[in-house]
């Protein structure tokens, strides 16, 4: 059959087909495109017929995969041709070449509308088809009423009305507001009385879309759907042409059952009974037949019926009938049915009471894991994952591990993640868990993320019984000729900590352990070297009596890395070298890492389903999502990395069916963990790039302001024997709700006192970030309220409780935040007078059944209104002298100060916008600083500060503050005192610092004159 009348097009297609190679084809295409382009340019002489021919050629070239970047206008212009043949081509080619976002479509709206409301039925059809296929929002807004009119018109023929139904469906998807529910529900019910099955099929699709968004309005459609289903299943009054291989329109049956799945229940007993009769007939009466199409069609209906039965929570008898059917399906030869059997069995897991029946098919499902078809293997993996529990975890995980070696690349990542999660969730004993993870690392190290091995370390650390076993296993793996780097990391860590427990075994002396680990060093990357260094230090510590030879060997390594370009390695090398010379003190410093707080596995949390979906979701999925959200609320307590962005790792790519997330809720209070590791080699607040830092990652959300200096302090304090109280109880935020915040609110606040953007608050539902700008006594703060979930957060209320010194204005806060959206709420400040009080944000919202109310301090604190200014001696001394004494100049001896080296104290001052002026005070133990403070009452005012420290006792100092305003002087003095006494990571303070109430002293205290600094003060 040749193209009627378009010889040019036929010739062109033949030419293309005759091209010997791609190059020849390209030449021919380019020639044609050139030709079409010139013809379009002199459009005048172009008849509609010619235009039509060229437009078809363009479509053909476009299908071949070439860019066709011109001629769209010509295609669109054909839509307004008066005659059918041209108009038809215009509509079809436009719908193929352009998508809904194309600008040219806008030009055609009027023509399209005229065709829709015009009298010409064939034009109506063309227009409805194109709008139904590529209509966007603009079409929805301008055409929906006309399309609705056609759909319900009694004078229109079915061929127009069925197109109108689907066209309306498209417009509704683009903008649900175009269908007015009140008016439309009755019409929709009437449409279901339609005799013509073509119109009914299209209308049913429309109904599915409508009820998926809002079933409430369409209850009246429910009995009608059941009637339609009855009619079809009994094959009553179904014209021959609407049966497909003897089955009355299988598509309409499927759609009708789909629509019914959006209604939560069926209350009317007689309707329910009729429906169950139909379903029973489908379940019982579907036989496997030879004809493949008939088989497919009848099974399409059967699987939809299964889904409906599951949705309706039918009696147990019917459920077990379904499971029996599925059990049969997963063993048949026909691959489609096998695939669908596995898929639906996974869905079935959500139904209570059938898990045990499903477990009976475990062997068959495991066989499917070895199916030649990856689609089927994927389903089997999902199902095994979903059905796993304590009783069968061992078998299933071992199967997964076995399969791992054979699995193709595309599945390994998912497989190893799932195996790791199952091993953790259902481990019958922990040594088995360790076995599984080590095997996993061994077989698929590339796919084992850090989270997985961190978790092993946590378990081993927390379970003494496990330690010798794990150490032994780690040692065994080291004997293998080539091991994965992750294996090096985990075994180095474990052997460092617990290698000494193996001392009596052959090949496990410190020297031998060191030897075998050190062999791996040349093969590893820079991220592993720090771990190895730590291990060496630990081995050295455990070698008692000291072995000078080993010591020299290890010292040589530390020496070598002392100048390493990688900061982490360098720091560790330097520190360990210094520490390892401390002799007996080493034992304390490098003591075993204390137990980790119990916490939710980062793994399981990462495996959350992060799907955002379009309007139409099946009822099953909606339910699954609701389930997963409620469970998330309980389990997600791990913190995000400091910057608040969700972690991106191989894990986040893998989706786990959310239906199986009945995770254990072992969410100990993480904030306690702050106290734990202070004396150990693993610093609890390491720089974020540190691997071991990630291991402890959840503990450190916002690095403390002095984080770079932190390790020194900790180690120093350890050496000097200041025992940090490990049982300090942290002030538990302002939080008593069931929804736990992620991260420590106080810490976040403190961090934000020092910087101008960051996260203020986070919990499983929302995140509040902020960004601030300060100019003199004005401030502008933007709150970013982000909804982390796939459902909206509602009933948001935000009230600012300002202290008397701040004038604040919060712009309107919206009542709801749409799913996964972020809204911004600017907040304006004016600082009226100096004060240390903080503004409080009283924030509440509702999510599902949870109402959350939190009170958050806003970091609009005193130091934000300071601006650094450096003053010279000529400026400083006259000023200092003129402010002669109280109340403008105040002095106080502060005790219980955190012992900071002077340099760090200076850093602290700088971070509060106070300029440290070196050289003004001749005594190197003193510190002089200055700043300008802004408020409405004081205007810009110079503040001067002097600290005199005692090198013999760093926990006390004398502070003198001076400014031209008594309130400012007092408030600033108190503020600085708070910062010095209360460590910026305020969390651990109350127990640690125990500040003695400082005694305010007059500046001319005679006792102070013995102090050299005081004498200087007197001179000044």
């Amino acid at each position: 059959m040749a193209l009627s009348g378009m010889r040019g097009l036929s010739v062109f297609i033949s030419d293309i087909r005759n091209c010997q190679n791609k190059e020849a084809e390209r030449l021919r295409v380019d020639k044609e495109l050139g030709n079409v382009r010139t013809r379009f340019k002199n459009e005048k002489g172009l008849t509609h017929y010619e235009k039509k021919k060229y437009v078809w050629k363009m479509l053909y070239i476009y299908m071949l995969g070439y860019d066709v970047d011109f001629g769209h206008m010509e295609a669109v212009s054909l839509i307004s041709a008066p005659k059918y043949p041209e108009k038809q081509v215009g509509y079809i080619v436009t719908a193929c070449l352009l998508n809904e976002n194309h600008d040219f479509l806008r030009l055609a709206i009027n023509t399209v509308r005229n065709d829709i409301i015009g009298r010409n039925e064939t034009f109506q059809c063309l227009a409805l088809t194109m709008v139904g296929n590529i209509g966007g929002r603009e079409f929805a807004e301008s055409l929906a009423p006309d399309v609705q009119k056609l759909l319900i018109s009694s004078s229109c023929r079915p061929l127009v009305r069925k197109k109108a139904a689907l066209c309306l469906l498209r417009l509704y998807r683009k903008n649900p507001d175009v269908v007015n529910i009140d008016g439309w529900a009755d019409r929709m019910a009437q449409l279901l009385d339609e005799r013509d099955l073509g119109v009914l099929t299209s209308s049913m699709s429309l109904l599915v879309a409508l009820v998926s968004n809002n079933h409430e309005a369409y209850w009246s459609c429910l009995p009608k759907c059941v009637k339609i289903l009855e009619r079809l299943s009994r094959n009553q009054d179904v014209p021959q042409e609407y049966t497909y291989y003897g089955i009355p329109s299988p598509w309409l049956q499927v759609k009708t059952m789909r629509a019914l799945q959006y209604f939560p229940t069926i209350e009317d007993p007689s309707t329910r009974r009729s429906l169950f009769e139909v379903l029973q007939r489908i379940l019982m009466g579907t036989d496997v037949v030879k004809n493949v199409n008939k088989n497919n069609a009848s099974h399409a209906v059967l699987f939809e019926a299964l889904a409906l039965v599951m949705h309706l929570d039918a009696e147990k008898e019917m459920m077990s009938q379904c499971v029996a059917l599925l059990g049969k399906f997963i063993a048949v030869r026909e691959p489609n049915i096998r695939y669908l059997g596995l898929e639906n069995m996974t869905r079935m897991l959500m139904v209570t009471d059938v898990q045990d029946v499903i477990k009976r098919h475990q062997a068959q499902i495991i066989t499917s894991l070895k199916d030649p078809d990856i689609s089927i293997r994927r389903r089997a993996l999902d199902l095994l994952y979903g059905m796993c529990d304590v009783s069968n975890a061992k078998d299933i995980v071992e199967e997964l591990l076995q399969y791992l070696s054979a699995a193709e690349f595309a599945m390994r990542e998912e497989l190893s993640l799932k195996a790791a999660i199952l091993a953790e969730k259902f481990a019958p004993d922990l040594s088995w868990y360790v076995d599984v993870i080590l095997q996993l690392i061994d077989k698929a190290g590339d796919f084992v993320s850090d989270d997985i091995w961190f978790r092993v370390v946590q378990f081993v650390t927390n379970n003494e019984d496990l330690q010798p076993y794990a150490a032994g296993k780690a040692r065994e793996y080291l004997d293998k000729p080539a091991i994965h780097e992750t294996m090096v990391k985990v075994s180095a860590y474990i052997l460092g900590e617990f290698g000494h427990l193996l001392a009596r075994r052959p090949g496990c002396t410190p020297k031998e352990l060191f030897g075998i680990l050190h062999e791996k060093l040349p093969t590893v990357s820079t991220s592993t070297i720090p771990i190895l260094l730590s291990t060496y230090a630990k081995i050295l510590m455990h070698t008692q009596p000291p072995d000078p030879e080993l010591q020299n060997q290890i010292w040589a390594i530390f020496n070598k890395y002392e100048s390493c370009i990688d900061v982490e390695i360098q720091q560790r090398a330097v520190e360990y070298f210094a520490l390892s010379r401390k002799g007996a003190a080493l034992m304390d410093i490098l003591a075993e890492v204390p137990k980790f707080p119990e916490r939710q596995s980062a793994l399981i949390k990462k495996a959350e389903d992060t799907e955002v979906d379009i309007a139409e979701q099946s009822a099953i999925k909606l339910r699954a999502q609701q389930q997963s959200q409620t469970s998330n609320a309980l389990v997600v307590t791990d913190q995000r990395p400091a910057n608040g962005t969700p972690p991106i790792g191989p894990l986040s790519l893998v989706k786990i069916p959310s239906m199986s997330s009945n995770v254990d809720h072992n969410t100990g209070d993480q904030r306690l963990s702050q106290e734990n590791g202070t004396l150990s080699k693993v610093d609890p607040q390491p720089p974020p790039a540190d691997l071991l830092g990630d291991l402890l990652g959840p503990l450190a959300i916002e690095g403390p302001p002095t984080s770079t200096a932190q390790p020194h302090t900790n180690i120093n304090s350890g050496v000097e024997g200041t025992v940090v109280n490990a049982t300090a109880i942290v002030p538990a935020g302002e939080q008593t709700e069931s929804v736990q915040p992620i991260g420590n609110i106080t810490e976040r606040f403190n961090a934000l006192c020092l910087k101008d953007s960051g996260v203020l608050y986070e919990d499983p539902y929302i995140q509040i970030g902020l960004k601030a700008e300060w100019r003199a006594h004005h401030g502008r703060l933007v709150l970013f309220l982000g909804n982390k979930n796939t459902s909206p957060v509602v009933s948001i209320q935000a009230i600012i409780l300002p202290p008397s010194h701040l004038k604040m204005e919060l712009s309107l806060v919206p009542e709801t935040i749409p799913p996964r959206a972020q809204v911004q709420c600017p907040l304006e400040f004016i600082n009226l007078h100096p004060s240390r009080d903080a503004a409080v944000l009283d924030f509440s919202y509702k999510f599902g059944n949870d109402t959350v109310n939190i009170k958050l301090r806003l970091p609009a604190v005193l130091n934000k209104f300071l601006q650094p200014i450096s003053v010279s001696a000529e400026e400083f001394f006259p000023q200092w002298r003129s402010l002669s004494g109280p109340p403008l100049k105040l002095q106080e001896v502060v005790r219980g100060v955190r012992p900071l080296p002077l340099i760090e104290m200076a850093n602290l001052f700088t971070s509060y916008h106070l300029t440290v002026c070196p050289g003004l005070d001749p005594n190197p133990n003193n510190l002089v600083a200055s700043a300008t403070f802004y408020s409405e009452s004081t205007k810009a005012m110079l503040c001067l500060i002097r600290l005199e420290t005692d090198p013999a006792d760093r926990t006390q100092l004398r502070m003198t503050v001076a400014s031209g305003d008594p309130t400012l002087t007092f408030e600033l003095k108190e503020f600085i005192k708070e910062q010095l006494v209360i460590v910026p990571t305020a969390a651990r303070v109350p127990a640690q610092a125990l500040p003695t109430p400082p005694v305010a002293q007059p500046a001319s205290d005679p006792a102070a004159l013995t102090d050299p600094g005081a004498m200087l003060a007197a001179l000044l």
Partner: protein
Amino acid sequence: MIHFVLLISRQGKVRLTKWYSPYTQKERSKVIRELSGMILNRAPKLCNFVEWREHKVVYKRYASLYFSMCIDQDDNELEVLEIIHHYVEILDRYFGSVCELDLIFNFHKAYYILDELLIAGELQESSKKTIARLIAAQDSLVETAKEEASSISNIIAQATK
């Protein structure tokens, strides 16, 4: 819903594409590349479904042509598989035992017929007879218009002689 329909030959040549969800030109070529790699490489006798991104692709091979439709994960796969077959049967009836060549030289017809079968990625008509009747009506409309045109041009030609 069906997001797109794709007809690819065994050699990877595209014979028809129809997009019901908005994909840009660039995404379209990427999707075609990705999917032809996946589908053409599948061994025979496997199931007719491939999991792809967040979607599923239902495909079936007829002689040298692969017909495929992309759907949502929760859609009924077998139903879509039979939509494909339904389409093939209609093509077959229209062309009289259809082959790849028919679809190459008459690709526009394949588009017309598809438009009578699907709109907005949903099935519009399940009666083959109805669709055949509508396509025949369209053809005759085109024929009539052509005859008219030629008779008019004859008249003009004669008048200007």
